[in-house]
């Protein structure tokens, strides 16, 4: 009876694919980020964690990637 997250993940990937590629590899970063966030949310449902901080870290990770590659031409 366990949840099947495959459908949710596949649609998240579709949406990430449709997002602007602000810098090279940005979409892949977004895909990894949403997959990580969903995994954290699922985990949090059964064992409470400090999820807000963890999601913040993931967002920060993508932001850092974007900042690092912006203006570098890569």
């Amino acid at each position, binding site marked *: *009876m*366990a*949840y*099947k*997250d*495959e*459908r*949710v993940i596949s*649609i*998240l990937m*579709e*949406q*990430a694919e*449709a*997002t*602007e590629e*602000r810098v090279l590899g940005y979409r892949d*970063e*977004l895909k990894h*980020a*949403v997959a990580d*966030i*969903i995994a954290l*949310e*699922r985990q*949090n*449902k*059964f*064992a409470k964690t400090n*999820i*807000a901080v963890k*999601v*913040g870290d*993931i*967002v*920060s990770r*993508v*932001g*850092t*990637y*974007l*900042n690092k590659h*912006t203006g570098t031409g890569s």
Partner: protein
Amino acid sequence: MRLIKARFDGFRLLDGAEFNFSVDKKKNVTVIRAANESGKTTLLSALQWALFGDEALPSTYTTISMDIPEGMVGTTTAEVTYEVETPKGTRRYRLVRSLSDRAGSSSRPKSSVALEEIKPTGNDSVPNVESYLGQHMPADLREVFFTDGDRALSFIEGRRGDQQKRVRRAIEQLMGLPLLEAALEHVKKAERDIRAKADNVSGSQQLSDVRAQLEALDLAIPDNEAKLAATTEEIANLSDLYSRADRTLQDALKKGNREEIAGDLQRIEKQRAASEARKRTADLDQSRLLSGIDFAKGMMGEKLKAAGKVLDQLRKKGQIPNSTIPVLEERLTHADCICGESLDPNDRDGARRRAHILHLIEDSRATDVLKSRISTIYYESRELTNGKMAWHDQYVKAYSARTREQETYEELGRQAAELEARLSKIKDNDVQSAREMRDTYLQQLTSKREQATRLDVTVRNLRQQRGERAKEMETLLARETKGRKFAAELSAAGDLRKIVEQTLVTMKTREVDAVSRHMNELFLQMIGADPDRAMIRRAAITTDFNIIVYGRNERLLDPSQDLNGASRRALTIAFILALTQVSGVEAPNVIDTPLGMMTGFVKREVVKVAASSSSQLILLLTPDEINGCEDILDQVAGEVVTMTNPAHYPVMLKHDPGTSDARVLICKCDHVSSCEICERNTPSTPKQVGEAA
């Protein structure tokens, strides 16, 4: 997840009750046969308690046996073995849940639970049991997978808003939407935190202002969204109430408006009075025809014609008319004769001639009486034999007119009686109150729709403003070297938020549509609806989570009112099966008494469709539900057992079970066989009882 076996001790009627569930993929159905009051619903509750814990039962639900005396302690234990598919293969677990309760206590104590993984090398105790169980059997999904025929109907019955809530909840839970909503909230929070940090670091007043605006927008948007959702729900309920009120009004109008009917009655009475007057005139016309000359002509015409001929012959012979005397007498009044000679009495010749005429008069007077009478008849009968003989036609016309008027009079009398009967059945204010009620709902509905439109516009505007302010903030940040990092993070947060938001929208539309289409296929298959000829053409789930059905000519039907009991149940079972299939969640569907109110084709198809649409199907069926589906169960049922309540002896059970304990007996009898334990008396029909007497 698949159930393998279960054992219950001290759970109400279930004591020492063991069940094996079919895990054969080709015969994936387990049938628990039990008559009414033989433990089916208890088993459904027991399974839910074992797997989902205390929350699965109402707090007042007592699990211990009814045989335990007041004040004494009873123990309830459930032991369930199940397996789950994991990326590392199939894993098997054994779950034991138990509690001890005192008979008569007002609240049920908390249960304790133990879980162990069954391994070839020996069982491993699992820590954090509830967490594990939550992953294997999420409580959110319980009501979809464990249900009964009546409870499933709540998806299409009751208040419209409540129906929508239940359908939405079921879909959202199975599709994992709460997970996405939680993720969205956390991403939004991260976005807010980044803005706050950026604001602190930059110290720019403009940035601070934009941030404050964004903070306000972030509060206003969900607030207005919640108001819009609440208004939408109110609209759904009001639409439902309006439809019902309109139907009541239509029914009342069919019965008729009291004032209108009274008016109709008055009009009919007037027409009836006029008809009565016309009828009287027709009576007179008819009676006049029976006493007039034409009647005589009609009755005696032929005879008179014959007599007329004889009289004509006599006239031609000069025998009639007997006109000599009046002619001669008339001539004596003149001074001369018709031949020109004088009749002057003073003249000698004239006097002689007058004497001759008087003599002739005297002679004529001597003519026989018969000749005189014949003359009279001749003259008087000429009126009867001359002219058209139209009496018959006139009489037919008059008779038809009178008959027609009589019929009109009687018909108006019937109409008046019918109106009087209707009038006596109608309350004074039926139509008026129904119309007022409908108009009130319509007014409220219109007002709510306008409110919803305003809220929708507000939400759109607020979202647009948020987008603009976010962009402005990013631009301001990008101007400063130390702000660029935050600008990048905000861009990332915004992109992540949009991805999750758009995924939610997609899930709510595309996936709901998939459930809708699949539900329609299963439903039409269950009820055997021919797409070209059936009364019910298709079923669907609307974007606002209503389950609706269309009839011929795309006419919208209300499932709770326009479908029969069997179709209603088939529709809700189709919804559950479609939902579980589209979600991809593999779990047993446990359904108590799903085939109630179903017979024949629909019942058989529901069993077939449910078996082929479930990964594992556990049906709790009465013998009546099984009746007519035996051959299908032969094909799809991998496990069948029978539960019998010994308290049913001797009224319903044929043999003495040897116990009167309040616990069901379980035998291996399948859906077609019976034994000393489960064999039941054949219910006697009134005819049989009469024959026996």
